[in-house]
């Protein structure tokens, strides 16, 4: 096969795959404009019969939809911030300090990598319920705040941090907190950004845990709430799609704006 034919074949295949990959997103956006009749048309439609923002108005007027989105944003932000801080602290301790029990504590924390939290769902639910934390933000975020892989990722970068700077900072009398805040973290901000982005995405996307620990509608996160909007039951499938578009759009925009950063963050697992 000539080089040119080969290139054409590659482009065609990439185009075909692109169409398949984009289809659910395209259909979601298209169906968000469907009228209730469009969904039951004899021949299923690709495009809405007419353009109207009725579905968006319905979704936006839903009693809890805004609250669901806010809950998700708050819990994802809290998870990402706290996990980043915990990763900085623990990575610093294991790479910069000497203390009794270092090895055993490191092994203990790393052992959590092998324990799938989905299989601990029931026991964790009982713990959180026992602490009276169901239907609270704290209850939603608590089990996912510590992540051994985030700690490892951070420690991997700190290992190559210049120890002379730390020693000099200590001779100058600046404490560990000060060293981390003004030297270590600013110098390694990209790994912290990685941890933050990974945590934010995984927290925002989590479904099972928030489903279990929330019972009050106003405490539900958007991933859970979106399956309980009740639009489908009323035959308003369009409003269901409109609400999906409304929570997807911010991420799509973010993906366009900081594509490189997100790709780098998500592929950072390689270095673990």
């Amino acid at each position, binding site marked *: 096969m000539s080089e040119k034919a080969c290139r054409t074949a590659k482009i065609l295949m990439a185009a075909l795959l692109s169409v398949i990959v984009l289809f*659910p997103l395209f259909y979601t956006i298209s169906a968000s404009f469907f009228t209730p009749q469009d969904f039951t048309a004899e021949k299923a439609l690709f495009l809405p019969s007419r353009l109207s923002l009725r579905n968006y108005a319905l979704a936006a007027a839903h009693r809890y939809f805004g609250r669901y989105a806010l809950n998700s944003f708050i819990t994802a932000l809290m998870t990402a911030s706290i996990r980043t801080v915990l990763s900085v602290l623990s990575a610093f301790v294991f790479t910069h300090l000497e203390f009794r029990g270092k090895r055993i504590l490191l092994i203990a924390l790393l052992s959590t990598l092998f*324990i799938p939290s989905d*299989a601990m*769902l029931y026991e*964790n639910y009982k713990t959180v319920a026992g602490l009276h934390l169901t239907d609270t933000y704290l209850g939603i975020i608590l089990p996912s705040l510590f992540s*051994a892989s985030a700690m490892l990722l951070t420690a991997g970068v700190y290992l190559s941090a210049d120890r002379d700077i730390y020693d000099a900072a200590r001779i100058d009398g600046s404490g560990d907190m000060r060293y981390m805040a003004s030297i270590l973290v600013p110098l390694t901000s990209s790994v912290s950004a990685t941890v933050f982005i990974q945590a934010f*995405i995984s927290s925002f996307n989590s479904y099972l845990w928030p489903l279990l620990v929330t019972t009050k509608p106003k405490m539900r996160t958007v*991933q859970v709430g979106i399956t309980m909007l009740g639009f489908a039951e009323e035959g308003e499938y369009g409003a269901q799609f409109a609400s*999906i578009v409304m929570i997807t759009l911010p*991420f799509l925009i973010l993906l366009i704006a900081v594509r490189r950063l997100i790709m780098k963050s998500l592929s950072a697992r390689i270095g673990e």
Partner: protein
Amino acid sequence: MKKNERNAYLFLAPSLVLAVLFFMLPLAKSFTGSFLTISQSGKVLGFAGLRNYAALFGNPAFISSVANTLRFIVLFLPLNTFITLLAAALVRKKEKWTRIPEFIFLTPLALSLSALALVFKEMFRGSVSIMGRIFSTDVQWLDEPFTAMAVLVVLGVFLDFALDFILLLAAFRSTDRSILEAAEIDGASGARMFFLIELPAIGNMLSVTVLMALKDAAMISAPVMVLTEGGPFRSTETVMYFYYLEAFRSGNRGAETTIAVLMVLVSVLLMTLISRRRRNV
């Protein structure tokens, strides 16, 4: 105690408390609980020996959930590996046109798990659905065991696609240039170059990706919950969905603790394989 040491314990304390509270204690409780008879209300009624395990393996619903999970894995893993590898291979060399598909392959990241599952549910909603029209069939996709499983598999691929694509693309692009150039000088090109040089060069990353996808597949439950709720006739009821039903709906503590222990074993096995591979990346 030196200040140094005090700081170390102080900084580690929150992480340790969380690790103990949400990983180690629940594991210890599941492990001991799996050898005890526990009532629905959580009361310990006595020592059970291996009876919980025997009951679990004697439960046809559990056996069928294992079979369903294996069926899912057998369908999902090759398809997922092929599609993500194809996507990454197509755009691995940056050219003018590759920017567009490269971006498109990332877009599934924007649709979250439950959103995508809801969209799939609608796209495959019986004969008037859009998929019914595209394939011009009136198959009731989610009401027949085989097609329901197939839809679940495709959903699984969509959920894993973007991340696996990013990992494999990064691997392709970080391959040592000198290896590729040496092969080119030796006259390797096209398909030969790809299969004999480039693919083996990312072999380790590829196996890490496959093993991670395998781990996700073995643990799959949330997509099942939104898409099919295990149906039709429990044909898409996976092990972890069975665990969820037993633990939260039936209050069957014997099944809950034993499945937790077994899934930890599966996870330890897969994570050991992953970390062994990863060391060579």
